[in-house]
C-alpha cells in the first residue's frame, strides 16, 4: 500500500505523546492523591532560608551568554558531521577516492579543534578562577 511518507513519523509522535502523558500524569496523580496542608514554610522558597524579594529578572553574568554562543557554534558544527557519519561506509564510491572523505572531515574537525583550543586558552570555559585571562 502506498502511504504518505509523513506516516513514518507516527512512532515519534506517539513517543512525544507518551512523554507528555507521563509527565502530566505524575503531576496530576500527586495532586489528586496527596494531602494538601498549606503552611507558610511549605509555600515559601525551597531551602533558601530567605524569603524571595524583588524581581527575578536581575542581570546575569555575560558568562551565560558565552556558553550559549559556544553551544550554538559547536551545535552547528556537529550538525554537519552527522550526514557524513551516515554515509561513511559508502564514502569511497561517492568521492571516487579511498580516504578523500575521511581527510575532508579531519580538516573540518581541525577547525572545530582550533576553535575549542582558542576558547579554552582564552579562559572562557573557566568559571572558577577569576584571575584568569577571561576575567568576565
Amino acid at each position, binding site marked *: 500500500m502506498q502511504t*504518505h*511518507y*509523513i506516516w513514518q*513519523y507516527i512512532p515519534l509522535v506517539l513517543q512525544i505523546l507518551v512523554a507528555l502523558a507521563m509527565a502530566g500524569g505524575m503531576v496530576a496523580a500527586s495532586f489528586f492523591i496527596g494531602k494538601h496542608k498549606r503552611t507558610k514554610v511549605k509555600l515559601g522558597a525551597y531551602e533558601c532560608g530567605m524569603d524571595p524579594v524583588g*524581581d527575578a*529578572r536581575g*542581570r*546575569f*553574568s*555575560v558568562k*551565560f*551568554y*558565552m*556558553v*550559549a*554562543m*559556544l*553551544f*550554538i*557554534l559547536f*551545535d*552547528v*558544527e556537529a*550538525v*554537519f558531521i*552527522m*550526514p*557524513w*557519519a*551516515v*554515509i561513511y561506509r559508502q*564514502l569511497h564510491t*561517492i*568521492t571516487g577516492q579511498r580516504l578523500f*572523505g575521511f581527510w*575532508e572531515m579531519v*580538516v*573540518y574537525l*581541525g*577547525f*572545530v579543534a*582550533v*576553535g575549542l583550543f*582558542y*576558547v579554552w586558552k*582564552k579562559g*572562557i570555559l573557566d568559571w572558577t578562577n577569576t584571575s584568569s585571562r*577571561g*576575567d*568576565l
Partner: protein
Amino acid sequence: MSLFFLITAAIAIGGTLAAMTRRNPIHCILSLALGLVGVAGVYLALGAQFVGFTQILVYVGAVAILATFALMMTQGHIVSALIEPRRAFSRSSVSGFVTAAGVFSVLGWAAQSYRPLTPSTQQAPAAGAKEVGVALMHTYVLPLEVIGVLLTAALIGAVVIALPSEEERS
C-alpha cells in the same frame, strides 16, 4: 494540501505573530520557539527530514536559549519599560505591512505563473541525512570546509564582543 501541512503552517504563523505582538520579551521568545517548531514541521511535511530536525536542534534548542540568556543579561524590566506601547496603525507598522504585502503578492504572482522546465510526475525526492551527506561529500565538499572557516570567524567575533577590553575594565 495535507492536513499535516495545514497544522504545522498554522503553528508557524501563529507563533511568529505572537512573537511580534506580545509585550513581555520572554513570551516573545517562547512564541518564536513555537513558530520555529511549526517551520520544522513544514520542512518535515515537504520531505526535508534532515533540515527539519536540524531546525529543531539548532533553532528551537540553541537559538531560543541564546535569546533567553541575552535577555537575562540585560535588565529585563528596564527593557520592557522602555518599549513604547504599540499602536496598530503607527507609521512604522503600516509601512512595514505595506512593504511585506507588496513583496509577498509579487512572490505569489511569480509562483502562480511559474511553469516548471520539465513536467515532474513523481514526488520530490526525500532529503534525509543520507542525501545531504552525499551532497556534502561530493558537489558541496568545499562549502563544507569553508563553513568551518565561517564558524571559526564567528567564534572569534563572539569572544571579542563578550570579553571586555583593558580600557573597559579599568
